């Protein structure tokens, strides 16, 4: 079975050691995490991990189940690219002199949908949001100009479904809590 890129979203309580608990499930299988981003999500007190990883579907399905098994994980979901809207952001630092000499600054901004964040006599910082290929295209364009620094964020993604997928689980759990306290 061929490897493909999957996106996993993991909803967790906001507690220490969660990153370790999740990453160990990947490292145990020698799976390399391609990108990772963690932040609060729309539900108060709940954090969301967005992880991308190249592997087979059965392997990733099992990884997701084992992530979900951890006590402080609410739910985890496996997505392919067509099920989500996703984005990354990248920053590029280039010597100002070479940008000016090239005379391409307007083209670079327009054609790549980039923004200039800062211009100093020594350097200029571009920002680009988009998919990996788009970020890479700008990287290739700026490389000949003497790219000094480059950094790309992990993927962030929202699903095309209308509700946060974790809502259903939380509702069910709230009902369970009510039953138990009665």
């Amino acid at each position, binding site marked *: 079975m061929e490897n493909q890129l999957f996106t996993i979203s993991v909803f967790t309580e906001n507690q220490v050691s969660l990153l*370790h608990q999740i990453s160990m499930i990947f490292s145990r299988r020698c799976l390399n995490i391609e990108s990772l981003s963690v932040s609060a999500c729309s539900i108060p007190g709940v954090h969301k991990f967005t992880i991308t990883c190249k592997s087979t579907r059965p392997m990733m399905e099992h990884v997701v*189940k084992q992530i979900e098994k951890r006590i402080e994980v609410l739910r985890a979901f496996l997505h392919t690219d067509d099920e989500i809207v996703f984005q990354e952001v990248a920053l590029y630092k280039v010597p100002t002199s070479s940008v000016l000499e090239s005379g391409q600054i307007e083209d670079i901004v327009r054609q790549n949908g980039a923004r200039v964040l800062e211009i100093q006599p020594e350097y200029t910082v571009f920002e680009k949001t988009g998919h990996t290929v788009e970020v890479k295209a700008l990287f290739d364009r700026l490389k000949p100009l003497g790219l000094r620094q480059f950094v790309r964020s992990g993927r962030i993604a929202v699903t095309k479904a209308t509700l946060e997928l974790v809502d259903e689980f*939380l509702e069910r759990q709230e009902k369970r809590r009510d039953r138990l306290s009665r």
Partner: protein
Amino acid sequence: MRALIDQGVDKVFGYPGGQIMPVYDSLYDYSDKIQHYLARHEQGAIHAAEGFARASGKTGVVIATSGPGAMNLITGLNDALMDSTPVVAITGQVPSTLLGKDAFQESDVVSVTLPVTKWSILVRTPEEIAPAVAKAFYIANSGRPGPVVIDIAKDAQVGMAEYRHSSCNFIRSYDPKPEIDESAIQAAADMLNAAERPMILSGHGVTIAGAGSELIELAEKADIPVACTMLGLSSIPTAHPLNKGMLGMHGNLGPNINTNKADVILAVGMRFDDRVTGDTGKYAPGAKIIHIDIDSSEFDKTVGSDLHIHADAKEALGRIAALVNQTKHEAWVESFARHEKVETERVKKQELFPDNEDGKMHMGEVVNKVSEAFGHDAVLVTDVGQNQMFSVRYFSFSSPRSCISSGGLGTMGFGLPASIGAKIAVPERDVVLFVGDGGLQMTIEELGMIMEYNVGVKIILLNNNYLGNVRQWQELFFNSRYSATPMKNPDFVALANAYGIAGENVEHRDALGEAIERMKAHKGVYLLNVNIEEMGMIFPMTPGGHGVDEILLNSTEYYKPV
């Protein structure tokens, strides 16, 4: 301590040390309510806690100090995780101000234990202790049970906080008791009703859920033969006519062969371990598989299922039993007997009634005689290796929670301390331990615990002066190159005597029966050092990577069913 008492704890195993001293100091005040059993090594303490949990179903508790104390628990934690054993480990930690500074006896206990526990927490303030304990016990013994660690910084242990009773029966992110899917129950019943050659695989989950009577009800009503995994043994009595024996690498011919003949397999509380399935590509090709488990991550992990039911085994089996038709599968049930007969003729007879002139004994005959002497109703505890395989093959069970063995992790050294914990948990039952000369010496220091607390375990040392299981594999697969498997052993009976433990050597099979009677009649602990044939091998055997129906009857001959 009050938090522990609130959880119904009255027995704990442990070993003190610097950073756990405040807990031990408080234990001193509560010694009338909590009995502490001092192990001789932390690994012994946690295996004892596991044995206690496995025999009773209650959560075992172990206490250890920081650093080396906590690290010595790791094997036991992993063992408990693999075998779904509820254990709460309380460890001391350096004061919270010193965390991360390489303080004396500091280990990053939470990080180290996360992969080998169900849950692990570091407590830094006294207020957090009672809620953490309540949560730990809830997690350890709900859903699929497992080990939990509470790592308590020393300043939290000595700090003052008003004790508030804490209880825990809900965690937002954790759902240990899934709602049962009625349509799946109906579908399972339909599949079983339509089946001509159905079979039930009963695992440890049946024992944990206390589902033995539901299992038997279902099996009897729909006339379905039952096979047990090693940890599923004693979920149905050995003598039950529908109990067709043990699955797996050294299991019985009938259930292994018929796994590949069945048309519907109902697998309950088991996880299709590679020791059970052999090559999964050749496993149960003709069967629709129904998988019942409380842990949904087990579904489709190694063997795909046609229907899975995420549920407690007791509830699911009870409901399925209500829906299946009363029926008979005479020819199918009878088909097991054919294989049983071959196994008796070709394997069991030689093992149970050998006639070698030197009188050195076979493990199987010893196990069988001991089982008989205790009316086939003792609690069996085993170590790991040949002693384990012979024990589970030739011991008979009458009641649940009677087979305690390290299954998933295969931990040598588990047996002796686990038998101590088991005897402490169920003092009214006979507890017999079968252990090899290798495994016994891994945790032999726990003879000290037996001596101190008069734990009446019957220890049968199956002594062949070899690491027998590895030796067998060397003979079969490594041209009999016995690398590091012969062992020069001490005088075990003298060693036991040094601990005030009675015992005797049994050199010849003629003396075995009477020696067992003496052991049985002796009040309290007894060690029987049995002189075992060195070159003994455990058969039948499905070599690794082979299909479940490719079974060696001896070193060279595969079983060919007619």
